[in-house]
C-alpha cells in the first residue's frame, strides 16, 4: 500500500487523489503497485527489461491511461521502458509523470524511456509532470527519453511540466512525422537553486503537410542552468515552429539553441527565442494594484508558466 508521502507525490504529478478512472499502472519504488486494464486498453509487463507495453485498440475513443511513477526511497535508481502502441482512429489521453521524494543522502534517479507508436488519424493528448521534494543531500534526478512515431493524419499534443524540486534533468525528445501528422509540444520548466535542466527536441517532418509547434516557457532562478535545444528537420512540404521564451533571474544561466534543417524548398521552418528578465513595467503595474514586488514577481511567473 502507498504511504502518505507517495500519495502526495501522486497528487503532484498526476492530480490523482484516488485511483483513476480507466486504465492505469502505478509504479512505486520500482514495483507495480496497482494496475487496471479496460476492454480497449491492455497493459503488459515487459519480460526482458523493466517496463510495460500499453496496447490501445483501433477506434478507442475518450479513454485514458494513467501511468504515474513515485520514488520515495533514497538511493533508488531505475530505468524503465514504456511502449505505447496506439491503434488507428483513437482519441485518448495519457497521463504520465514522476515524483521523487528524497530525504536521504544518496541520489535517486528515474529514467523513463517512452516510445509512442501512433496509428493513422489518431489523437493523443499526453501530459507529463515531474516533481521533486525532500530535504536530503541526495539529488533527485530525472532523465526522460521520449520517442514519438506518428503515422499519417495523427495528432499528438504533449504537455510536459517540471516546476519544482528536480535537481538534474536531461530531457530528450525525438519525433518522426508522416503525411499530415501534427505534433504540438508545450514545455514548462522552472529551475532554482543549483538545478540543471537540459531539453533537446528533434522533430523530423518526413510526410507532406506534416507540422509541429514546439513551445517552451521557462523560468530560471538562483544559480540554476537551463539549456533548450530545438531541432526541426523539414524533409518535404511542411510547417515547423519552435519557440523558447525564458525568464532569467538572479545568477541563472539560460542557453537557447535553435537548429532548423530544411531539405526541401517548401519546408517552412521558424524558430523564435527570447531570454530576458521580468519586464519592469509588468512589476510596476502589479505594484500599482497594491502587490509587493515579491508578490508581483510570483504572479508574473505563475501566469507565465501556466
Amino acid at each position, binding site marked *: 500500500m502507498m504511504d502518505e508521502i507517495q500519495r502526495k507525490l501522486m497528487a503532484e504529478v498526476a492530480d490523482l487523489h484516488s485511483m483513476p478512472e480507466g486504465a492505469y499502472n502505478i509504479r512505486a519504488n520500482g514495483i507495480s503497485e496497482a494496475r487496471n486494464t479496460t476492454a480497449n486498453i491492455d497493459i503488459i509487463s515487459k519480460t526482458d527489461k523493466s517496463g510495460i507495453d500499453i496496447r490501445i485498440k483501433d477506434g478507442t475513443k475518450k479513454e485514458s491511461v494513467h501511468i504515474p511513477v513515485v520514488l520515495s526511497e533514497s538511493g533508488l535508481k531505475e530505468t524503465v521502458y514504456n511502449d505505447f502502441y496506439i491503434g488507428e482512429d483513437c482519441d485518448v489521453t495519457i497521463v504520465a509523470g514522476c515524483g521523487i521524494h528524497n530525504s536521504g543522502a544518496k541520489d535517486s534517479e528515474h529514467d523513463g524511456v517512452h516510445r509512442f507508436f501512433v496509428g493513422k488519424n489518431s489523437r493523443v493528448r499526453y501530459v507529463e509532470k515531474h516533481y521533486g521534494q525532500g530535504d536530503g543531500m541526495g539529488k533527485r534526478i530525472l532523465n526522460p527519453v521520449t520517442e514519438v512515431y506518428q503515422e499519417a493524419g495523427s495528432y499528438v499534443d504533449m504537455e510536459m511540466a517540471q516546476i519544482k524540486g528536480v535537481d538534474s534533468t536531461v530531457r530528450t525528445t525525438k519525433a518522426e512525422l508522416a503525411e499530415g501528422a501534427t505534433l504540438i509540444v508545450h514545455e514548462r520548466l522552472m529551475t532554482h537553486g543549483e538545478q540543471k535542466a537540459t531539453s533537446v527536441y528533434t522533430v523530423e517532418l518526413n510526410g507532406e503537410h506534416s507540422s509541429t509547434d514546439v513551445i517552451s*516557457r521557462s523560468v530560471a532562478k538562483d544559480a540554476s542552468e537551463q539549456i533548450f535545444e530545438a531541432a526541426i528537420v523539414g524533409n518535404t512540404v511542411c510547417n515547423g515552429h519552435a519557440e523558447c*521564451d525564458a525568464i532569467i533571474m538572479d545568477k541563472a544561466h539560460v542557453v537557447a539553441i535553435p537548429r532548423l534543417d530544411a531539405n526541401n524548398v517548401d519546408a517552412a521552418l521558424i524558430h523564435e527565442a527570447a531570454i530576458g528578465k521580468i*519586464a519592469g513595467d*509588468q512589476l*510596476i*503595474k502589479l505594484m500599482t*494594484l*497594491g*502587490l509587493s514586488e515579491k508578490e508581483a514577481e510570483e504572479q508574473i511567473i505563475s*501566469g507565465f508558466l501556466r
Partner: protein
Amino acid sequence: MLEIKNVSYRVEEQDAVIPIIEHLNLTVGDGKFVVITGPNGGGKSTLAKLIMGVYPVTEGRILLDGEDITELGITERAKLGISFAFQQPVHFKGIKVVDLLRLASGSRITINQACEYLSRVGLCARDYIQREVNASLSGGELKRIEIATVLARGTKYSVFDEPEAGIDLWSFQNLIRVFENIRESIQGTVIIISHQERILQIADEIVVIEDGAVKRQGPRDELLPELLGTPSAANNACSRLAD
C-alpha cells in the same frame, strides 16, 4: 487632499542633467475632478508617475491627506489609496483579464463581479474575462481593461493617463459616465490627463502643464474658453522654431 510641493524631476544623461519637471506645485482637493492638459512632452505622464511613486522625485514633497508620501514606494502608495491607469497599458503572458481584476480588487471577487467592471468600460464581459492580457487584445480593449483595473480597486484617488486615447466615439459618453460614477459612488478624487475637449468640459478644474511646470490652473469655466482660444499647437511649435 493631494499636495505636490515644489517637486522637480531631473534625469541624468551622459554628463548633462535634463529637467523634466521643475519646481511644480499643485493641490488637488478632495472629491475634485481635475483634468490635466498641455502640449506633448510637457511632463504630464511624468507627473502622474511621480504621484504613483513609479519615479522618485529629485526634489520637493508629495503629501496625501496631510501625510508625507515622498519616500514611499509604489505598493505603499497603492495601499494608501492611489490608483493609476497607464497611458500605455502593460502586456502580460499568461495573466488573464479576470486575474488582473482580482488582483486589483484585492479580494477574491466572483466572476460576476469581475464581469461587472468590464461591462462598465463597455466590454462584453463573457468575451474578455478569460482572455490573456497580451498583444492579441486591441489597443482600445487594453485601454478599457486598464481602466477597469482602476475601477476594481475603488480607491480614493484615481489617476488616468489619457484614458480616452484609442477609444471609439460611441463609447466616449459611457466613459464619461464611468468617471462621474467614481466621483458619486466613492466620493473619489479623479485626476485625468487628457487632450480631449469633451473631457475638459466635465472637469471641475483644469490644470495646464507645460515645460515641466503648472502654467495655468483654475475652474473649468474660466480656463476652457481661454484654452480653446489660444493659437494652435502647430503655430506654437513654429514660433518656437523661429525664436
